[in-house]
């Protein structure tokens, strides 16, 4: 199949100008949002997405903060268009700004307020500027695991924040009445309006300068290019039906009740279908996400597999992809499923799609990663100044999976979290009554393989005053798997050890608001990445280097990699050959 549009004759120079122009617009939207937002979760943690969309809601360019947001805004604009297509709901006009935080439309949780501004040019709806950003508080219950959407905060259906230039004061008052810190919420709201105004202004400038039809033709051509590139890469994947399965620990309420994640990928010609029908039904706890996130999982994986460096991220890249996500799964939940921790499970869905395709395209897939924030929240009253403190340790860097041609990255935050920063130990110790006893790579945590999985980290936090701690980590019982004979990495581990007790006797678990006394310790261990290829095929010199660096123990070098080392750490060549011969013979036997 070839690109179907009739925009092959769009001017090539203008196409490149528009390609870079829309990238610049979304970058400026992003910058202005970050500079004006009130909350650090937006301007430091980059918990937002901005973008430009066609009149129909197809993605032209998104300036992405977190990968899982790849789909939410497009679907939100389409939902808004659908709403206003019904005469009884009115129409969309040039000076309108639409809003919603409907979790089942955005796919995530109520914290994601999404503002969309239509861009009219010469009287016609030509495009949309859109901004989705995380408000730290949207009301709802504090503490505990929620089990329905109503306890998670205010719900704003699709409606107008601004109607023909006039702000909907009733809506603003309703929002202010339903959040705990209205000044902050309004600060972030205004920042989002700044972002969509920026998109509106800059894209209008492009339209004025080059004309509506030429610009739209150039956008269509960019999408066709992206589609062609994605189809070509898809075509190179062998046809077939590929399946894989993994699981999550539990849903936060039914502790220990595993949640299956099963995916099927069907590849035919230059098209791919990702079928998520057999992903677990939605759960009772707050780990659900909406259908947009099911689509996001498939799109993130597909983009990585076919056109990871093709910019801007646009709809054309996804035309060869079909996604089957029936309503009611844990990544396509329906009302009133709880959604507050929507982001945890999708990371594992993405890794499972890679796993399914590992045999078909080993050169393009990646073994599994730790797939969790591994972040601890702690709070108490400091004996130093008698004041409350609330702080975080994490997110913890874990190991990423190895690829066919390289080791996995060590100590990197999980895939959902993009470029999120953690907090320096020194800053944490200065601000809070804690001592970071250890922050180090976990030896032997990377799955053994021809290419080794990345190493996770271990952080040991000692309480210096009474305090409470809460950690809702997952993937402690489904370790990051290896591919093509590579071993699994060590799983995430979280536990509390009372003063004087032995950490090795503790069982990893979710920690729900537990009390720490001075001297008690919290262990946060982020898992390592899975390995790629059989460990005995790893270059012995690399294994020796891993031992020298403290990444791998001598024991693992011998038992997993079958590498014998001399006293000085150099490779014992004959000993290694013998070990590997013995190993192969044992395998054959």
């Amino acid at each position: 199949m070839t690109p179907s549009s009739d925009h092959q004759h769009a001017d090539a120079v203008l196409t490149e100008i528009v390609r870079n122009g829309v990238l610049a617009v979304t970058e400026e939207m992003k910058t202005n949002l970050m500079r004006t937002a009130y909350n650090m979760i937006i301007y430091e943690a980059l918990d937002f997405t901005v973008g430009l969309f066609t009149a129909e809601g197809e993605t032209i360019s998104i300036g992405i903060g977190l990968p899982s947001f790849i789909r939410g805004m497009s679907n939100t604009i389409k939902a808004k268009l659908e709403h206003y297509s019904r005469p009884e709901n009115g129409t969309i006009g040039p000076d309108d700004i639409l809003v919603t935080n409907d979790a089942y439309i955005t796919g995530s949780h109520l914290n994601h307020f999404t503002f969309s501004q239509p861009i009219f040019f010469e009287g016609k709806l030509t495009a949309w500027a859109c901004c989705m950003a995380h408000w730290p508080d949207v009301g709802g219950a504090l503490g505990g695991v929620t089990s329905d959407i109503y306890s998670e905060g205010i719900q704003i259906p699709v409606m107008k924040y601004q109607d023909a230039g006039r702000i909907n004061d009733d809506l603003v008052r309703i929002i202010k009445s339903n959040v705990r810190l209205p000044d902050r919420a309004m600060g972030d709201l205004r920042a989002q309006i700044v972002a969509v105004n920026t998109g509106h202004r800059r894209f209008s400038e492009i339209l004025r300068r080059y004309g509506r039809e030429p610009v739209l033709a150039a956008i269509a051509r960019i999408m066709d290019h992206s589609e062609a590139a994605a189809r070509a890469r898809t075509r190179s994947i062998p046809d077939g039906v590929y399946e894989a399965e993994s699981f999550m620990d539990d849903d936060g309420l039914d502790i220990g009740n595993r949640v299956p994640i099963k995916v099927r990928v069907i590849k035919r010609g230059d098209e791919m279908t990702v079928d998520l029908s057999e992903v677990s039904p939605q759960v009772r706890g707050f780990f659900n996400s909406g259908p947009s996130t099911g689509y996001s999982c498939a799109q993130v994986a597909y983009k990585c597999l076919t056109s990871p460096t093709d910019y801007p991220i646009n709809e054309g890249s996804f035309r060869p992809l079909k996604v089957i996500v029936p309503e009611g799964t844990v990544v396509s939940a329906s009302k009133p499923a709880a959604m507050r921790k929507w982001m945890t499970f999708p990371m594992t869905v993405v890794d499972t799609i890679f796993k399914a395709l590992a045999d078909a395209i080993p050169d393009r897939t990646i073994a599994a990663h730790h797939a969790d924030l591994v972040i601890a929240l702690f709070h108490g009253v400091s004996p130093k100044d008698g004041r409350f403190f609330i702080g975080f340790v994490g997110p913890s860097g874990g190991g990423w999976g190895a690829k066919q041609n390289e080791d996995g990255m060590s100590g990197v935050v999980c895939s959902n979290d993009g470029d999120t920063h953690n907090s320096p130990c020194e800053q944490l110790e200065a601000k809070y009554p804690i001592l970071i006893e250890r922050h180090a790579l976990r030896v032997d945590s990377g799955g053994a393989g021809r290419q080794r999985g990345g190493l996770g980290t271990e952080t040991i936090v000692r309480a210096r005053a009474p305090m409470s701690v809460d950690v809702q980590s997952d993937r402690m019982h489904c370790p990051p798997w290896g591919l093509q004979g590579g071993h699994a990495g060590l799983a995430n581990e979280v536990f509390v050890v009372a003063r004087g007790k032995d950490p090795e006797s503790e069982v990893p678990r979710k920690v729900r608001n537990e009390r720490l006394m001075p001297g008690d310790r919290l262990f946060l261990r982020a898992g390592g990445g899975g390995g790629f290829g059989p460990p005995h095929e790893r270059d012995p010199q690399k294994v020796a280097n891993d031992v020298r660096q403290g990444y791998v123990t001598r024991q693992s070098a011998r038992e997993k990699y079958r590498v014998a080392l001399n006293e000085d750490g150099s490779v014992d060549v004959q000993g290694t050959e013998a070990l590997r011969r013995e190993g192969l013979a044992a395998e054959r036997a």
Partner: protein
Amino acid sequence: MNASNGGRGAGLRAIALMAAWRRAVSAHTALSTGMACACGSPFDGVSGEALEQDLVFYVYDKYRGVPVLHPLFEQAGCLDGSACDLATLLRAVASAPEGLAEVHGLLDDLEKAISGFGRL
């Protein structure tokens, strides 16, 4: 009685502090501390109840060795390893004999912690 209590009795101060705590915790989410966790609700694990426990544990830990306050903690059920709530403790404080400097010291600490709550 010291300057910080404005000349009010311990009972009145205790009642005022309870009201101040209720106001503070109803507005609380500690949002200004900000981030750390992209996209999650970083404060999912925090409840007003949990923070109240922090407050009670703090004063208990600091004053449990003070003999004249021990009966108050005992009356409120605040013993080692057991949970008691702020209202019960303040009720016990309100019924304590007037003029105990240690009681006002405890109230001073509660006041300081609660007044700083909004700046988290």
